[in-house]
């Protein structure tokens, strides 16, 4: 097998007495969608944050492209090629949809410290931004203020901004939440193609989506990965069924 793009080794993180990550090992290989599932509060977002750089792990390593990035800042990891979407949208709410996408394109291209040229006239950035908006289906909303978007549309914009970065790896925290059936299907098709560009670590609640999309699945319960495997392996895993899939029914 090829070297993993992302290699998480023995990650631990506690909040006081709460062990949010316990000895987590996880890999992400080129071309794959690795889904991370688990009940609310299992520690999925906490894990993504440690990978992306927002949280320092208590111990363990994050190896990205063969390089130990555990000590690097969020910004440095982003520049190395981590493209992240947030569970709780972190967008510039006063900006238009297009501006947010241009922002992503600008971050990817660089040349932020330019003082005089109007950025919204930069054909290069606009083309990149519009292509990303088109991919997620937000073209007709590009002139709206982001604060006017629905919850689901903000999700789509999160994904679009990540697309503008052309990252080496996507870290997506529940990108489909609140999308509705149509939006979900569209996003699933998009992610299906996207994995060829860069592998995706996907946190997702929608089990149907996960089973349809993922190459591999890891199940996180109380901060521990209780199982990792292919879709069929996870479906068949008894521990997973009691720990997680069983709970799904009354959720």
């Amino acid at each position: 097998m090829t070297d993993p793009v992302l290699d998480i080794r023995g990650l631990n993180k506690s909040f006081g007495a709460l062990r949010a990550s316990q000895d987590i090992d996880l890999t992400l290989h080129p071309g794959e969608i690795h889904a991370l599932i688990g009940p609310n509060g299992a520690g999925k977002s906490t894990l993504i944050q440690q990978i992306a750089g927002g949280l320092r792990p208590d111990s363990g390593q994050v190896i990205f492209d063969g390089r130990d990035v555990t000590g690097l800042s969020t910004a440095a990891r982003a520049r190395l090629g981590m493209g992240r979407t947030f569970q709780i949208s972190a967008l510039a709410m006063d900006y238009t949809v297009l501006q947010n996408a241009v922002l992503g394109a600008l971050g990817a291209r660089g040349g932020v410290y330019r003082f005089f040229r109007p950025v919204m006239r930069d054909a290069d950035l606009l083309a990149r931004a519009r292509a990303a908006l088109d991919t997620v289906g937000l073209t007709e909303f590009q002139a709206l203020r982001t604060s006017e978007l629905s919850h689901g549309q903000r999700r789509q914009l999160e994904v679009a901004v990540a697309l503008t970065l052309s990252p080496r790896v996507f870290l997506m925290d529940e990108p489909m939440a609140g999308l509705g059936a149509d939006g979900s299907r569209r996003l699933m098709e998009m992610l299906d193609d996207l994995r060829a560009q860069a592998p995706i670590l996907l946190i997702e609640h929608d089990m149907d989506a996960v089973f349809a999309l993922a190459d591999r699945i890891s199940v996180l319960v109380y901060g521990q990965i209780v199982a990792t495997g292919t879709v069929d392996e996870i479906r068949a895993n008894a521990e997973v069924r009691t720990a997680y899939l069983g709970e799904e029914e009354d959720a």
Partner: protein
Amino acid sequence: MRRETLLNAAVLALLLAVPLWAQATDEPFTITLATRAVILAIAGVGLNVALGLGGLVSLGHALFFGVGGYAMGILAFHAQSYTTLIDWPVTIEGTKSMPVIWLVAVLASALAALGVGALSLRTTGVYFIMITLAFAQMFYFFAISWPAYGGEDGMSIYVRNGFPGLNTMDPIQFFAVCFGLLLLVLLIVWRLSRSPLGLMLGAARQSEARVQALGQVPYRLYLTAFVISGAITGLAGALFADLNRFVSPTMFSWQTSGEIMVFVILGGVGRVFGPVAGAALFIVLEHSLGGLSEFWHIYLGAILLGVVLFARGGLYGLLAGRERAHD
């Protein structure tokens, strides 16, 4: 035309018409008032780069205003007393040339903003407000206890500094100089607000997590904005000193910082022309209310309270509506 563009044009036209009318009717004091408004507007436009674009609530911009003022005062003082500024390792003399003074004022205040910003921007929120205030107070007390340059009494500069080809002692000509600089500063800030840096800075103000995820370091963006902001306010300080032909520690006082912030809030935080309207309104209020009562600041306070409670966007928010997201 957009309402905001119309309002911008109206504000500038008014600011130009008043002194021209005053010139025609031989009212030099009114010209001086208008010049004061223009200079304070520049200070406010400067603060607005930090406050409006970057969301940095600096209560220490008097520091840069004062540094600009003292840059003018010190250079002109040595020129008028025929003493050298320093003798070693090279001899540097004072100057009465405005362009040179402006350059020194801008560089000195930019440097001060770099130092103050580098330290203050490690904090956020109310701590940032307090630390910027504290730095300005340090400079205030330093200026008071610096006898070489007048200490508590400040310094008088007998003749206004010169600008090639102009008689700057003529109020209307000095007004023209200041108005020209205001236009230049507005152009720079307007372009800045639409530039890549402006876009990213505004995004940092709205969500630091977002710009970090894009590979940007908010601290660096803020520091850049803070330096530009301080430099512009420093230029205003140099002009203010020239207007009064007097420099004193008051320029560093927290009241000065507060007033600069008032221009921005009155006019509209984050609107490029906001502080121009704010400073002009401030001067009008000071002049009209000041004539009514010594305690005009109480009325000003009431008006400010009204703006903060009922018209968050200031004059611009009231008259031009919400800012357009982009053109």
